[in-house]
């Protein structure tokens, strides 16, 4: 098992983490721990949001880049870590437990 696999596993094992989605550059989920519909919904929406966020950051300064995006909501927090080709989305509910 690769290190990243372990990492993902660790993340999943964290309390409050309800799902991990890996989305490719086209917004297509390639790995998920959630159910299908939720995954599709998350990946489609977050992908757009992340693209917009990245665009925003880079528009402000082309040499800058988006590294992380967290969306804090009442219920949970969506953490988006954009990579070159993939988007790692983790949904966590910190208030749980």
């Amino acid at each position, binding site marked *: 098992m690769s290190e*990243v696999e372990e990492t993902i596993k660790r*993340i999943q094992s964290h309390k409050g983490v309800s799902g991990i989605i890996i989305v490719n550059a086209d917004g297509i989920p390639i790995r998920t721990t959630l159910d299908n519909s939720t995954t599709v919904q998350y990946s489609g929406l977050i992908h757009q949001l992340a693209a917009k966020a990245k665009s925003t950051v880079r528009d402000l300064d082309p040499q800058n880049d988006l590294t992380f995006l967290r969306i804090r909501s009442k219920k949970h927090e969506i953490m988006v870590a954009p990579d070159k080709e993939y988007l790692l989305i983790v949904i966590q509910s910190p208030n749980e437990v």
Partner: protein
Amino acid sequence: MPSAYSIDSILGKAERKLSAIPDDVEIMRNSPSVIMCPQTSGCMSVQSPSKDSNDRSPGASRNGENYFDSSPEKSENEEKHEHSHEDLNTSLSDGENEESGNAGNKPRKLRRSRTTFTTFQLHQLERAFEKTQYPDVFTREELALRLDLSEARVQVWFQNRRAKWRKREKTLGRESPSFMQREGGLGLPDMPPSHLGYQSPLEAYWSNRMTNLPGLNPLLSMPHGSAMLGNMAQYFNKVSSAGLFPNYFQSTAPGSSFPGIPHMYMRTGLSDISAIAQAQAAAALSSQLVGRFQVSEPEQGLDFRRHLTKIQQVTLDQEVAQRPGGGAKTSRLRGSCDVFFSNEIGHRIEASTIKHTNMPPKGVPAKAKPAPVKPKAVRPKAKDGDDMTDVDGADHDDWVNTKALVKPDDQLELTEQELKEEFTRILTANNPHAPQNIVRYSFKERQYKQTSSVDQLAIHFALDGNMIHKESDEAQRQRTKLGIPDAHVEPAVSEVGEPVSAAADSEDRGDEAKEEAGDDAGTQAASGSEGGGNKKLTNQFNYSERASQTYNNPYRERGTATEPPPRAVFSGNVTQWEIFDAYQEDFEKQEKNKEKKVIPGRKEEEKARKRLTVTETSGDDVSRIAKAAKIVERMVNQNSYDDIAQDFKYWEDPSDEYRDNEGTLLPLWRFSFEKAKKLAVTSLCWNPKYTDLFAASFGSYDFMKQGNGMMLFYSLKNPSFPETIYETDSGVMCLDVHPEHPYMVAVGFYDGSVGVYNIEKKDGHLHRCTAKNGKHTDPVWQVRWQKDDLENNHNFFSISSDGRIVHWTILKNELTYQDVIKLAMPDSAAEGPDGTKITTIGCGTAFDFHKKNDYLFVVGTEEGKIHTCSKAYSSQFLDSMDAHNMAVYKVRWNPYHPDIYITCSADWTVKIWERGNKSASDKSDAMDASAKKPLFTFDLNNSVGDVAWAPYSSTVFAAVTADGKLFCYDLSVNKYEPLCEQMVAQKKKTKLTHLEFNPEHPIVIVGDERGTVTSCKLSPNLRKQPKEKKGAQAVDPSVREQAEIAKLDKILLMVRDPTENKG
């Protein structure tokens, strides 16, 4: 005569022979067949008209005299002869000129007086004209006989009458048909009395017919002597002009005209062309199936016979055999011509009555009837009288319509048996009728010689087209019958004038007739060409337009709808950063190209590397998001330990404000790793660059439980899992992170070896010493990086319980060592059992290098001694003292004060020492060096594993004990009691082994023997800064340092004073 020669000139040289070789003519004259002629009985006698008709046709008589008689104008005759010779090869116009020239030479006495027609004559003529405007020669002859006129006069009268008629027609607006005009020139027998008159029509006519009617060619090409040919031609001319040929060509009896003459065997033995004419006439008759024909030969018709000067009369013996059943009629011209007709159609064919009439001189009574050659063959045609013209007209039509069988009275009545009787005829290659006895006069031998070669050619079958000439009478009749209007006018007008004028001036007839004839020919040719030019003259026959309208294919649309090419809409916004990226990419590419140019050899390597990386990355998709995963993990941890993070950042113990001399430690994250749980934390070290990152080494202090070791790198951001993990085969007893190169980590192992790790490379250690290259024999208790040496090589020191302090230098890839000092015990040489002295070696456990004096360092030993050493002196200590009773676990210089250092030991105490002053005073005192006393001594009631100065203050230090407590002192606050004594370990039994202050944050990490690292936040009381520092002004580090030193000095002074005072 040139007219006759003209036509003959077309035929070839035959005529030339005729005229050029008179002996031929002579021979023909004397040929037996000719000779036989006069002997024939019952044939009609043809008088040469030359003598009798001088008054009527002077030209003819003149010519006749010239050629056939020994005229008195011999010279003229010869001259004429010569002319005719020339004319053989000259054109028509030449002949005409010749003629006109001759005519001019002729005396006017020959001029004919104008004929005055009687009323009866006119009446008869008008009647005839009503019947037909173009009477044929027989009709004309008949008329001439009846009206006591010459045939020529009748002809001219008709000519003029027609002209008049045309004129009238024209004024009435009707256009005369084209053939009429032509007929006037050609087909009509409107010849002048002289044969010269029809020379040109003959020419034109025959030049046409010869080519158009191949059926005639066999006749004309019959090789019976050149003279005969010439005569024949002339005769034909006459026949044709007499209306025979129009009949010949007609096709009124459908399908029977020429098939009616399927077999024609004609043999012309001699020059008696009239026989041929008879044959032709008979042929025409048979074709027409109307057997009423009278061939009347005018005297002009016999002009050709004037060659035969001695023959004035030709007797034709004609036998006509009629076979009504077989339909074969044979007309035999005795001695000269045999004509066989076989008529397959069982119509009655009436033998033509050939009348050879002697044109009577003026004295001949007008009523004279033609003498029949054979009474029984002669039809009672004379009765027809005026109706002679009916032959071509109504009569014919009547026959066609009624189909009445008219039998001649004298027809043989044959019985059925006779009819069925077969006549067998054997055909041989030789012509049975060919004359075998032709003789010719040979001038050479002066006697007659029989000619050996007799022509055997016979024409068995000749088929002509069933077309009729549109100008012919028959055609006209058909046309009128069908009601087709004549569509042919123009040329007629031009031609009409002349005959009219000629009619008006009939006195000049003789000469004018010649000219007219010539003109006729000229205009004929001209009109032909004009007609061709003006209107489309397809051909002269009853041409029917065969052009047909073809079907026009309807237009059809053949368009095919192709599939439209796929279209797609692209849209996109170009943002600034995208442009930036594009440029960046381009820039990188350019850089790459430059590199490639410089080192082309590396290409392959790069490729291989690329391939490798590609395969690696493609092998595991998820590995690409390692970074993202790490970030997210930290974030998740942050969320998970959000309260801790909040505490770490913001929580300040509020109770500190109320208790001045007390502080608390707030436990924060607890770093624990599953694999390291059975190992003790042997050392801790913050990363100098990343202050949230620290390294922890794991090993075992238990001699009996040695095993593998571990090295973990933790980040405060991810307390749940270490960032980097190194597992070693031996317990890691100590480590040190290079202060300037945070990725370099020096490690000391329990087995005595030292190693260097690069955190960036996870695959293992960079260097590790072995027994060969100076590893320690005992566990390495501490390693410490030094500043890079003069050659910029990384180097570090290590201390081990084997008593050696070794200086390690990394030379390229090699780890070299150098023993700095050996911890010998000078004064305590142990005695062995056998009395030998063994120099005991001090077991170094800890050392620390002076912050400012690079060479100075202090060493703590297991024996509790503290040695102050210098790198420069490897053999002796600068100072040495017994500081503790038990092993010294840690020695640390004060971060601010250069002479203060602290030690901790297993003897439960922490002691603060001052270098220099003490020793100096001690020296002066010459007192026992070991009697030196520490500035402070704190008893912690348990083995003190580690002690550390706080980085933010010169007076704060903390110590951990084996009972799991952390003691925190601030000398400036309390010199005797700790500000905080707090249980950090989770269990009481758990020994705390090490601690370390974070250089930046107010936290301290504590390691225990269970592999757990605990971070604690120092309460505000524990990290009190000098009060003046709280001001807003920026603090200069040097000022601060001085302040810290002063603060500590102040305290020390307080401490010193009592000792001095004591001392």
